[in-house]
């Protein structure tokens, strides 16, 4: 099947200038390749700083990729100009992590929900208002909320408003950048349920970013595990979570606390190892208990453990 969104060898390097004018480069993404089919949801997990959010920012074009391409429906959108991009903006939308800073405090719910439609400029005021009411109902909120301000709502309600806003332009792809990690567990479940039912109703495609493995398992068909700007393992969520093949995925799963079991502190000290200088080898080399010489010299290729389960490890 033709993928809806394809990412090929995407790289992002941030340049940090210091006081004396010399620059340090930080490679946030070191070549990511992914593809998402229509109606699918792909989960992306990984520790803080592994480049998950950078990936989302690149896909939605808040940042320019350094190298590589983002292909939406066969069209490369990674370097097109802002004006041409505006027409495509409506097809990909994003829900951010923090429900408190993602809604403008001085706009009413109606203004917030109609703004993306104003930009499109196709609908009349009446049509936009009807659409806003419809969206509120989709996320389980009453139309009487239209004239209220964001500070009158709870975190979960605000996140539902963010989801409604992202859906105003009827996008194909929704990027969910840790949409539940700022919420209470009970509210998390509510938001996740809304997301799954919306996906069925509107045939949405999700790219779900999270560090919570349970949430990813619940919502996504496939999962990609990222570490230091590289994909380590990608495959059906069930396989990744039940029979992980990459040493890093195994470690991630071990680190999930389970009620009733004694919790072993993961050996985080390994994480402080400076491994910024790995050029050719596997970025996980310094932390990997199974590392050997080959891992430092050569970047492991994706090996197919099963047809759709790929692992970037020489030992996979």
């Amino acid at each position, binding site marked *: 099947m033709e993928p809806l969104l394809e990412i090929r060898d995407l790289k992002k390097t941030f340049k940090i200038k210091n006081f004396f004018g010399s620059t340090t480069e930080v490679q946030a993404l070191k070549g990511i390749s992914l593809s998402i089919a229509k109606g699918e949801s792909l989960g992306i997990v990984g520790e803080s700083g592994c480049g998950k959010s950078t990936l989302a920012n690149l896909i*939605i*074009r*808040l940042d320019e990729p350094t190298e590589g391409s983002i292909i939406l429906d066969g069209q490369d959108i990674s370097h097109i100009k802002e004006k041409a*991009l*505006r027409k495509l*903006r*409506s097809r*990909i*939308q*994003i829900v*951010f992590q*923090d429900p408190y*800073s*993602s*809604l*403008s*405090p*001085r*706009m009413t719910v109606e203004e917030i929900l109609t*703004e*993306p439609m104003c*930009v499109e400029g196709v609908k009349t005021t009446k049509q936009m208002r009807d659409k806003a009411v419809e969206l509120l109902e989709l996320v389980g909120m009453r139309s009487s909320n239209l004239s209220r*301000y964001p*500070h009158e709502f709870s975190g979960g309600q605000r996140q539902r408003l*963010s989801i409604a*806003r992202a859906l*105003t*332009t009827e996008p194909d792809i929704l990027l969910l950048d840790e949409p539940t990690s700022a919420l209470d567990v009970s509210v998390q479940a509510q938001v996740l349920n809304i997301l799954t039912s919306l996906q069925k109703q509107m045939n949405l495609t999700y790219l779900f970013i999270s560090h919570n493995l349970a949430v990813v398992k619940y919502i996504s068909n496939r999962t990609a595990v990222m570490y230091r700007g590289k994909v380590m393992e990608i495959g059906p969520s069930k396989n990744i979570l039940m029979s992980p093949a990459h040493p890093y995925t195994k470690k991630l799963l071990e680190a999930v606390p389970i009620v009733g079991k004694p919790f072993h502190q993961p050996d985080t000290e390994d994480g402080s190892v400076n491994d910024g200088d790995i050029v050719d080898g596997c970025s996980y080399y310094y932390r990997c208990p199974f590392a050997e010489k080959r891992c430092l010299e050569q970047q492991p290729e994706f090996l197919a453990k099963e047809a759709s389960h790929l692992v970037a490890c020489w030992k996979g």
Partner: protein
Amino acid sequence: MIISPKKIIGILEQNTLTLIGTIMVVFIIFIGVAAPLICPYDPNLMNIPARLQAPSLAHFFGTDEMGSDVFTRVIYGARISITVGLSIVVIAAGIGCFFGSISGYAGGKIDRIIMAATDMVLSFPSMVLALALTAAMGPGLFNTMLAVCIVRIPLYVRLMRGQVLALKEMQYVRAARTFGESPAKIVLRHIIPNCLTPLLVQMTLGIGDAILIASSMSFIGLGAQPPTPEWGAMIATARIYAIDQWWYAAFPGLFILITVMGFNLLGDGIRDILDPRSKD
């Protein structure tokens, strides 16, 4: 965020200083607007036989060296000072906001150029620069306003730039970018409404300052020219009579004090009212 009248009244009840400031400002604006109704005389009416009279029932604040009623002139002076203060602040804030938001939002070279210009203006003492500008353009109330306006612009440029830099990274601004809102619209719809609080506070405090600078300029003879009933100009003429005829300089001075203090107290109060953290 909506400010209810109830909240404003609540804050005024709790905060005596804000209440005093509000009363002062309302008072000054009222006498300025209603000047012809309040005043028994024409501000420029000369009556040489009645010159330099002490305060009495006929002349509440006495008379000046031309026999004009000081009370009338002081009341008419409120008109001039309020107009001068408001127009300076509104124009300076408008221009300052424009350049400040461009500077903050665009960044890079444009930002560096605007900030360099701002720093240049700020590196002069504002009074001295305003003096030099007025002297270059020629004395007069309008030129003084223009000069003070130019001197005040950098304050608003800096304020706005800082606000924009902070707000630009807010997620609702980023979200607006993802649905293709143009930079100009993002600034107008998302950034400016969210930095109104500090802007309004700075503007209110700025009115007092602007009135003070404009009066000082008139005092040294560069601003309003006598016989315009401008407070600074009046004090300048009154200076030589100050020892024997105290009322002539004292009352214009008192009104400058009331106006400037009123706006300063009100500015602090507005900060409290607009602070979303203060309770409803």
